[in-house]
């Protein structure tokens, strides 16, 4: 599904990702953990195609597509979804209207019929029910006045609506209390399954109690330095990042 090969990324001339390799097979959930400043969010933004994140070497393959040079909207239409660490507040734009345009942009790209207002509403209600979220979410301006938990829930709801093949969840657990974390994690678990790969980017192991990954990767200084099963997260939680950072520096 996703293959990242020797990825080097510069932001404003500074190298942040330094030869990152990663493979995420179809239907699997992988976690990327690492200390602050290791480049986790840079990886998330690079996968989504944010301007200013210059890929100077390597490539990102998504099935048979090379995403590396694609525009953000082209990636989204191919099924790449980024759940933002800091979802943007957009006053004056009603969530439902925006999401209808978004869903239809993807459907159009796939050669499917665009949804009319009624069909959209039906689908949205169905997804909200599935994710145990409140319908009121639809009529509010995008993220305006949302609590941290509501913003993250809105991201997961969007993910549910857009049905991506690759979802990158950037620190989706940050700023959430335990109840909000459970709701968000339940949502992600509901959306987990064949045909959808998920990359969980997180600093803490806590999220992985609720979304159990198939694999855990540790990122230090712009590279994956260790990979393992879900027990690796527990080890990191117990011993901190100091050892892996040291080992990476020595290598």
């Amino acid at each position, binding site marked *: 599904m996703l293959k990242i090969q020797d990825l080097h990324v510069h932001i404003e001339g500074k190298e942040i990702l330094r030869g990152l390799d990663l493979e995420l097979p179809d239907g699997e959930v992988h976690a990327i953990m690492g200390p602050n400043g290791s480049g986790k969010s840079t990886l998330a933004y690079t996968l989504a195609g*944010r*301007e200013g994140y210059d890929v100077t070497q390597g490539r990102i393959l998504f099935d048979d597509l090379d995403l590396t040079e694609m525009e953000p*909207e082209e990636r989204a239409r191919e099924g790449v979804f980024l759940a*933002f660490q800091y979802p943007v507040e*957009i006053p004056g734009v009603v969530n439902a209207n*925006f999401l209808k345009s978004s869903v239809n*942009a993807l459907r159009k790209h796939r050669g499917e019929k665009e949804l009319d207002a009624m069909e959209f509403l039906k689908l949205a209600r169905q997804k909200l029910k599935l994710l145990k979220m409140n319908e009121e979410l639809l009529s509010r301006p995008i993220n305006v006045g949302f609590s941290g938990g509501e913003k993250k829930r809105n991201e997961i709801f969007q993910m549910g609506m857009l049905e991506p093949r690759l979802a990158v969840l950037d620190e989706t657990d940050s700023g959430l209390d335990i109840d909000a974390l459970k709701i968000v994690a339940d949502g992600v678990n509901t959306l987990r399954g064949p045909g959808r790969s998920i990359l969980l980017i997180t600093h803490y192991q806590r999220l992985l109690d609720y979304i159990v990954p198939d694999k855990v990767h540790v990122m230090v200084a712009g590279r994956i330095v260790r990979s393992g099963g879900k027990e690796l997260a527990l080890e990191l939680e117990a011993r901190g990042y100091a050892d892996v950072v040291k080992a990476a520096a020595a290598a």
Partner: protein
Amino acid sequence: MNIDAAINLPPIGNTPAWLAGVRQEAIERFRQTGFPTPRLEAWKFTNLSALAGTSFREASPAEVPELTRADIEPYRLTPECHLVVFVNGRFRADLSDLDRIPDGSRVVDLSQADEADLRLLTAVPTVEGDARARVLADLNTARMTGGAVVHLGRGAVLDPVQLLFVGRPEGEPMAFHLRNLIQAEAGSSATVLESYVSLGKGPYWTNAVTRVVVAPNAVLRHYKLQAEGIEAFHIAAISARLEQEASYAMFAASLGSRLARHEVDVDLAGERAEAKLSGAMLGRDAQHLDTTVRVEHSMPGGTSSQEFKSVVDDRAHTVFQGRIHVAPDAQKTDAQQVNRSLLLSPQANADAKPELIILADDVKCSHGATIGDLDEDAMFYLRARGLDVPEARAILIDAFVAELIEHIGGDEPRAYFRRAVDRWLAGGGRS
């Protein structure tokens, strides 16, 4: 402009002698000063040389463009609204719908104005200003050929009235000097919409002066759509006098014309009067759009707000000048002003000049101005959800303007402006 031609004053009904004198003096002032230039502070950012350099003729009363109701239908607020139509500066009874005006109120052409109307129409504005900067209103006084006189009787409710001004360019460029009066008697309530549109291409000049009087406890919602053709010049001056506890809301959308100036003077002349002034300028190509607002708090306890936004694309230029003047007696005044501009291209330009003159000590006044481009984070967020750049831009521009539209009172006027903004976003909007 051939100024000497303007000496032969066109008749307005049975012109009383005093009015002939007023008009004579007005044209003298215009002749002495000529078109305002950027040397005048009030015209610092707006250069009228293209207007001054164009020679305009005045349509003769015999020239009646052939237009049908179907032609003007798209610009109508609703099929049911009271409608008064002017084509090329002259009243068109055949296109208007004025047969359902309730007793005690009046909506007529300027030629039917009575002496009291004419006195109000030609009174010197009470908001302080440089007389040299107002000579286009003087020219209007001398040359006015038509306009709406809207008189709301005591306690009357009139909702809504549309004044539709159609420019139909033919032959040499024409100038239309329109003079309107909206007078709301005590306790009355109305929505009045002015729409300026073009049917046909070509240069012309709309020079409109609208006088507004809102009597004690009256409520007037005054809206204006300026969607003239891209070769048109549009100069409009509104001056409003608010009496005790009068409430006046004014929203204007300016998206047409090659050069447009929307000037609003409001005098809160009675205690606890309230003025809510807002507007959106949407400019593209090489348009120049100017909004100049002067709010005068003459009496205590008044509330005023100014919320103006501009969206500027291509090489367009918008200007916002907003003055708040609080007289020494106007204690307990609350006056706010906000101006925000969104620049969509590197060549786009927005000027803002706030001016606060506060001579009372117990007041609440504030102002703020921002000029910026589209929020990059928001653009990326929308694109990451599959919207392409034009779609994402349209959504954000729409959101920027939507806040103002949402505050428009009444579903129909709100939908009317909503449609106008949508047309602009889709690349059109000007007639």
